[in-house]
């Protein structure tokens, strides 16, 4: 028997394509129907391929089955309508006679429209990520729950609410008008940014899944750069940022799958090809007159692709954080700026600035203070690290803090 290997994640990839295309035909209010048909299509493959062999063109086979299933659905609905009320036949949408187009361009357009539909300002960011993972990335409920470190029930609830919201707001699958692209793009980019971060910083023990999340975020970002209407500077900047971070994937894990912190990483394992790609997108982003937070974050991330500590590097990073905080405040950026400040102006100056931040609910705040006080006042440092330990939520964070405490008395 001929054993042909399937492309990894083929079904997951095709799920999002089939769902997006069908949804464009059915309308966004029929999202669940589109999802069901996509799901049934894979079950049909499971019922046939193991015995008949994998078809020569698996994707084409899936598309044909999905089309037939969609057509059957239309036919059934048509019969139902005809028997209930002949007058209703007139109301049947015109699309029922047309063929469902699963060509490459149409798929890309449909996925892009779906991306904009899901990243709708009316839907909570958390729910957008769930929806994006489900519909645009083809993740199962279990996989989403695993990746986002929560329960299946939680994810189901989140998705349910998000779908309700899509219906209430009558979100349609259309590409936003040229004048609106800019506004809507912000929400889309924020969701992709969060999606990437979920993968990059998640505590989930499933490291394969975590990298998948990052790769999906990058794939969706590429979808935007591939379309002239959305190939805009902030999109390229975000993609550059992702490339710079992703360049460290190979070095972030040790042989046991444990996370290796930045300063302990083997720099020869940093993926220089990924860095080059990041530089390429960062250059592409350097047009126009609007500086986005992604430009600044990408520039900071670029500096971190060179580990060597130089005055120039930290000076540049500090300036970039200054700009970033003015444009888009976040506690993480405030703390990172303070760290950069300690590299440029020394720890005493940084402590003075750090004390002003008063992020007393944030364990990174106390971890930073602990690091800054070390050698200046070990007693103070110890106090801060204890506070950090109390606030830390994950075992990995607690481990880092324990190590820092131990180092105080070396």
């Amino acid at each position, binding site marked *: 028997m001929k054993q042909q290997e*399937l492309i990894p*994640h083929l*079904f997951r990839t095709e799920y999002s394509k089939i769902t997006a295309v069908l949804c464009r035909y059915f309308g966004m209010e029929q999202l669940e129907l589109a999802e069901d048909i996509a*799901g049934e299509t*894979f079950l*049909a493959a499971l019922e046939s391929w*193991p015995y008949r062999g994998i078809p020569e063109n698996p994707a084409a086979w899936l598309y044909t089955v999905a089309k037939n*299933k969609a057509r059957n659905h239309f036919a059934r609905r048509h019969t139902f309508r005809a028997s209930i009320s002949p007058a209703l036949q007139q109301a049947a949408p015109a699309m029922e006679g047309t063929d469902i187009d699963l060509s490459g361009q149409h798929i890309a357009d449909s996925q892009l429209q779906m991306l904009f539909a899901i990243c709708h300002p009316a839907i909570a960011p958390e729910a957008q990520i769930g929806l994006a993972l489900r519909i645009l990335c*083809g993740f*199962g409920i279990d996989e989403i729950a695993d990746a986002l470190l929560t329960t299946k029930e939680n994810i189901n609830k989140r998705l349910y609410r998000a779908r309700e919201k899509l219906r209430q707001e009558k979100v349609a699958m259309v590409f936003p008008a040229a004048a609106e692209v800019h506004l809507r793009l912000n929400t889309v980019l924020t969701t992709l940014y969060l999606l990437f971060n979920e993968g990059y910083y998640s505590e989930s023990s499933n490291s394969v899944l975590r990298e998948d999340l990052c790769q999906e975020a990058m794939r969706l970002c590429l979808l935007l750069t591939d379309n002239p209407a959305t190939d805009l500077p902030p999109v390229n900047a975000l993609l550059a940022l992702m490339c710079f971070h992703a360049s460290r994937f190979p070095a972030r894990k040790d042989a046991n799958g444990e996370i290796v912190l930045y300063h302990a990483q083997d720099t020869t394992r940093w993926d220089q090809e990924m860095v080059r790609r990041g530089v390429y997108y960062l250059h592409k982003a350097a047009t126009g007159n609007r500086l986005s937070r992604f430009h600044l974050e990408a520039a900071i991330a670029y500096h971190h692709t060179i580990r060597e500590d130089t005055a120039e590097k930290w000076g540049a990073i500090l300036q970039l954080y200054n700009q970033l905080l003015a444009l888009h405040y976040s506690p993480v950026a405030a703390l990172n700026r303070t760290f950069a400040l300690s590299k440029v102006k020394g720890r005493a100056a940084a402590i003075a600035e750090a004390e002003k931040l008063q992020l007393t609910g944030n364990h990174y705040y106390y971890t930073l203070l602990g690091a800054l006080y070390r050698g200046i006042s070990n007693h103070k440092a110890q106090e801060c690290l204890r506070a950090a330990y109390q606030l830390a939520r994950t075992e990995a964070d607690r481990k880092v803090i324990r190590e820092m405490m131990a180092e105080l008395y070396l």
Partner: protein
Amino acid sequence: MDEFMLIFRHQDGSKVASPEQIQVWMQQTMDWIGGIAAQHKYVEGNGLLFDDARVVHHNNVVTNGPFGDIKETLGGYIVVKAASAEEAVEFAKGCPALQGEGNTVEVRKIVRGDGVH
């Protein structure tokens, strides 16, 4: 050498699996069948479609099935060559369907039609 039919029964045929999970099952099923075929013991096999499934009851009552009142559904079958029921059972133990709790693989010898049995 006799032929045995290995029939997969699923506890819940309508359970929604993720695309990734289905692809994993598919690969496992193909590997399982490939392993049997490599021993030259595989005869044939088929999946059974859930689409348009019907159950015809006593008095010719037809229901959309097999879901609903029946707890178990048939997912598919393969036919293998084996010297004994024990050997066929060893093949059955590798069936990916068994990863699902409550799922079973029934092993039945096929009538030879040689006049003996």
